[in-house]
């Protein structure tokens, strides 16, 4: 209905009296610039994580332990204390950090290649130990950083560079549903899966992250948040179709919900 001449000026804050509802970046991000691909879900999830930390007034006690994946590129701009771990090892590193820093809010940030492939035993053992940390999984079902290879959470049928006709259960096996696996362990206090494929789910993701962090602050034990994120580059789908693909392809196997809340 509107024509080209209706385009509004949006290159500066409005000149009329207005309340700023939300700034470009969360307070705990040092800069908006990063090298992640167009349509990537990871910065969206990290925004929610940093906002949750800020809202819980934990900015000055949070220590992140970061895995290796695309999101590692964000360590230059995340403004909480950080420890860079090796691929898969973040839950163990976070264990040592938390034990020596019991009042810290210690979280890990890992991808599915990092957590569900390379470091599967680390997250399972830390969960079983009831380690009072929060592990955050950014699950896009693919090794994004290497250019789109199958991980242990790639869903059947999903195309990756080494399952070019789609993951075939007979040949490549079935994906690991890590949240379901961790929820079974008596050491876990909070387990939930969410996704950033639309605005309301993104807001819900922050709500879940707050609950997980609160679980740790209350000393209840291991908390776990799996966030499904878009990787159109690694999925070989058009960038704008990323959210739909996430919701309908990955989300139909890695089902959203709170699996455990104690």
């Amino acid at each position: 209905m509107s024509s080209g001449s209706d385009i509004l000026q949006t290159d500066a804050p409005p000149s009329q009296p207005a309340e700023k509802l939300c700034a470009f970046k969360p307070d705990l991000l040092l800069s908006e610039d990063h090298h992640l691909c167009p349509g990537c879900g990871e910065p969206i999830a990290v925004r929610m994580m940093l906002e949750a930390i800020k809202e819980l007034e934990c900015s000055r006690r949070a220590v992140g332990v970061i895995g290796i994946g695309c999101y590692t590129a964000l360590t230059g701009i995340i403004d909480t204390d950080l420890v860079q771990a090796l691929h898969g090892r973040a839950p163990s590193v976070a264990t040592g950090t938390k034990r020596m820093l019991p009042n810290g809010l210690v979280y890990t940030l890992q991808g599915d290649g990092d957590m569900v492939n390379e470091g599967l035993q680390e997250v399972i053992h830390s969960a079983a130990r009831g380690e009072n940390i929060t592990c955050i999984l950014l699950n896009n079902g693919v090794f994004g950083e290497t250019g789109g290879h199958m991980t242990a959470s790639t869903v059947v049928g999903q195309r990756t560079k080494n399952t070019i006709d789609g993951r075939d259960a007979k040949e490549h096996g079935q994906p690991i549903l890590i949240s379901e696996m961790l929820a079974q362990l008596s050491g876990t206090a909070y387990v939930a899966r969410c996704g950033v494929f639309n605005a309301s789910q993104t807001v819900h993701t922050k709500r879940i992250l707050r609950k997980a962090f609160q679980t740790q602050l209350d000393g209840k034990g291991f908390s776990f948040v799996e966030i499904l994120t878009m990787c159109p580059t690694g999925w070989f789908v058009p960038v704008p179709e990323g959210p739909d693909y996430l919701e309908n392809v990955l989300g139909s196997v890695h089902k959203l919900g709170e699996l455990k809340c104690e």
Partner: protein
Amino acid sequence: MTQIKSRGTVNIATERCKGCELCIPVCKPEVLRMSTNRNKLGMRYPELLPGCTGCTACLLMCPDFCFEVYRYQEPILHEVDV
């Protein structure tokens, strides 16, 4: 001519935009659309039409932190061609 009300608006850092278009379908009032021009990165970027509600959905879905969202104290009225 008709009047459209904008209760909110956005400040868009178009030069940072990587053109992913994730903001377009999440905009409930459908007042974002992609430009025909390209920025320095060679990407098309979102442009705002009258009718923004200041819901922040675009900001929530933007991986590149390109949106700042405002709510007007008094809604702004735009005269547009139908």
